[in-house]
């Protein structure tokens, strides 16, 4: 199977002063279609930077290819769910935030749009908040609408930056499950940043750990058998491996 996403020799420097350093240096990642890649790494190591480069929001050295073609800037084939709470358009209702990208990408039928908005809002547990404006939502609600907006356009690749960080355990688990379902059904390729090792193990079929200085410290396939939970065979070892590779030592959590 061909690679849908190729990151070749990616080097990123924000060039924001004389002493600015390379955040990422010569990074290489290949992803086949329908892979679910989880990226772990200490705070400030460059995870967000990496997917911003993939999404096309940053200048960088190196090449990012989608389906064999070099990308130039952002595109609807790689949808980003930002780490930022305030990524929804504040001038649009929750519903319209979801409908709008669909509309500009070809779904003109009003009923179809309403149906889709409803469907994805239900998916993230927000049926009933259609008419609210983003400033009327809680942090976690904003995050969920953003996820719904991103999923609704059915991108080839979805780039998610700690999308579940502000969600309670139950909502998070439900969304994890839904995300996996969608991934299979729609054949999406996912790059997913998380700080939660367990989440990474549950979701990813490939796991990357970045070091403090932005290098790939670990890049492995998740061979655990679904459904993955602490009782799954090999869970403990994998957990330990990831945890050990995360900078520093862990004796708790």
């Amino acid at each position, binding site marked *: 199977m061909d690679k849908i996403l190729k990151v070749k020799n990616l080097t990123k420097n924000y060039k924001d002063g004389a002493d600015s350093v390379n955040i990422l240096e010569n990074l290489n990642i290949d992803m086949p279609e329908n892979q679910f890649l989880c990226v772990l790494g200490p705070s400030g190591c460059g995870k967000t930077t990496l997917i911003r480069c993939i999404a096309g929001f940053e200048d960088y050295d190196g090449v990012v290819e989608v389906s064999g073609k070099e990308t130039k*800037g952002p595109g*609807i084939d790689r949808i980003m769910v*930002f780490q930022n709470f305030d*990524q929804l*358009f*504040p001038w649009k209702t929750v519903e319209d935030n979801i409908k709008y990208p669909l509309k*500009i*990408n070809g779904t003109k039928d009003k009923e179809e749009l309403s149906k889709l908005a409803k469907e994805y809002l239900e998916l993230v547990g927000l049926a009933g908040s259609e008419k609210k*404006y*983003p400033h009327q939502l809680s942090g976690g609600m904003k995050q969920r609408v953003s996820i719904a907006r991103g999923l609704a356009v059915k991108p080839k690749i979805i780039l998610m930056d700690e999308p579940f960080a502000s969600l309670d355990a139950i909502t998070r688990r439900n969304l994890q499950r839904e995300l996996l379902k969608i991934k299979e059904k729609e054949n999406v390729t996912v790059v997913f940043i998380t700080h939660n090792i367990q989440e990474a193990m549950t979701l990813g079929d490939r796991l990357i750990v970045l070091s403090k200085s932005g290098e790939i410290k670990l890049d492995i396939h998740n061979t655990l058998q679904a459904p993955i939970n602490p009782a799954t065979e090999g869970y403990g070892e994998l957990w330990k491996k990831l945890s050990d590779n995360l900078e520093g030592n862990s004796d708790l959590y």
Partner: protein
Amino acid sequence: MKQARIQLVFVASFLLLWQITYKFGIFPQIMFPSIGDISNSFLEGFIEDGLLAYTLYSLSLIFKGMLIGIVLAFAFSSLAIISETFYSIYNFMVSVCDLIPGVALLPLAILWFGINETTVIFIVVHSIIWPMSRNIIDGFNSVNNVYIESGKNYGLTGINLVKDVYLPASFNNVLSGLKVGWARAWRGLISVEMIFGTTSSGAGIGWYIFMKRTNIDTAGVFAALLVIIIIGIIIEYLIFGTIEKHTVKKWGMVR
């Protein structure tokens, strides 16, 4: 509304103070008429002097000027956001042109357009396009990156990005620009009407003020200013207030 009450009290105190100043003869009465005189002039203006016609004529010019000014300011500011090259040029033009007083352009305008409404509208447009562009461009430049990136991510480019992201995201600045532009339009128009007037093709409220001033009819001047102020308040609170309520306030973008 509490606001309206405070404003009413303020206006009332102002009028009272004015009348007291008048009564005590602090200023020569020929230059400082009483509230009564001004009210009389106001009524007389409408009943006898055709103040309504002057007002409507000025309003028609202002609306034409505003329309052209708004369209151009948006068109150019949008272009400036889309194209970096154009940005360099337009930003430069705004800084330069905004400095040139309308009076100084009048001869050129007459040369280009002749002596008619177009010349006046040209000066009005010149009064508003630059400050409005300044507000719009600066507003566009300060739009939160995440909205622009979201927009681009979902496939918006060029004019669509401006229309659907830059514009609503900087709507507060745009409204500021419109308010400043609206005031500039009035001031520009009145100024030009006062130095460049014509009785034939229609005359505006600036001309009216000029006539009253020439005839040392100070009450008449204030009556005409009153007309401008009343129109201004209506536009501010009815039009701009309503727009604000249904946009930036509803969106939680301003207090």
